[in-house]
């Protein structure tokens, strides 16, 4: 399943890349090593049984949609555009908490700037 570069340009590019790989520093290699061992530790963990929660999650989602439609049928039409839904998915992803903490920080900075301007 491996590909061999057959053109001088490709060979040059590959050689340049390989050299950058060979020159990775010790700290980076150490982090990679730790990451690998952390990943291998997953072999010892029982698999999470997400499937047990799927029916409950599906019912909860259906109930939520039904409640939204009953509360305000027009709300369905006003629902944010697809791009905003995507934004929400991203915001509610694994890193969202960290990012929201940052937002509070930036908000505080803004307030602090305004106060200093006033003062």
């Amino acid at each position, binding site marked *: *399943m491996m*590909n061999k570069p057959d053109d001088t*340009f490709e060979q040059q590019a590959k050689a340049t890349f390989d050299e950058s790989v060979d020159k*990775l520093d010790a700290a980076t290699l150490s982090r990679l090593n730790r990451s690998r061992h952390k990943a291998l530790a997953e072999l*010892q*963990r029982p698999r999470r049984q997400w499937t047990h929660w799927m029916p409950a999650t599906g019912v909860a989602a259906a109930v939520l949609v039904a409640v939204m439609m009953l509360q305000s049928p027009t709300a369905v039409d006003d629902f944010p555009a697809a791009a905003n839904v995507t934004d929400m998915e991203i915001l509610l992803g694994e890193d969202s908490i960290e*990012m929201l903490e940052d937002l509070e920080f930036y908000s505080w900075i803004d307030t602090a700037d305004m106060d200093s301007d006033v003062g």
Partner: protein
Amino acid sequence: MDVSTAVFAVSCSGTPITGTRALQKERQLNQFLAEVERRALRIAEIGIRDRDEALDLVQDAMIKLVRSYSERSREEWAPLFYRILQNGVRDWHRRQAVRNRIMVWFGKKPSDDNDYDVIAAAPDPIGRAPEEELSNSEAMQSLETAVYDLPSRQREAFMLRMFEGLDVAGTAVAMGCSEGSVKTHYSRAIHTLREQLEEHRPQEYGSQEGK
């Protein structure tokens, strides 16, 4: 992992596997990950221009591969691993786009990708002559910049085929597209890179072709 813990290892299906089999699987996975981790890091780093974030993405990809695909055959691991990694890179870009929109909303200037200093992020030298080191760093900087500027799918096809060495079929699995699409993306990437790099650095990337 010693034998006693290996006995309690479980497979993806949740069923216990024997100690010998668990050890063998762990050894194979360790070997595979050790083989790909450095190239994977550089590929991710070129894709997002941030080494720390790239290290996190590689770790996530390793964990997801082990957690979800450890029972697949050895030959399937590379395309699957890179598919996970490329998804991570794409998600990272999406999060950055959202983050930048929000930063603008708060009146802050989004971080500029061009602030990334490839020379500063370059690894420690390992005993080469300064002139050679500088030349190689410049060549890599030119290549990284040109690859980063490619459209995302062309960048993925180029890095997976050229840097990782996956064939067309493996690249198609990793990118989640057809083999025909891989060929198209790769061909366009090569065409663009050759034009750009020959224009800027003919002594390094183009001069030998005419010989």
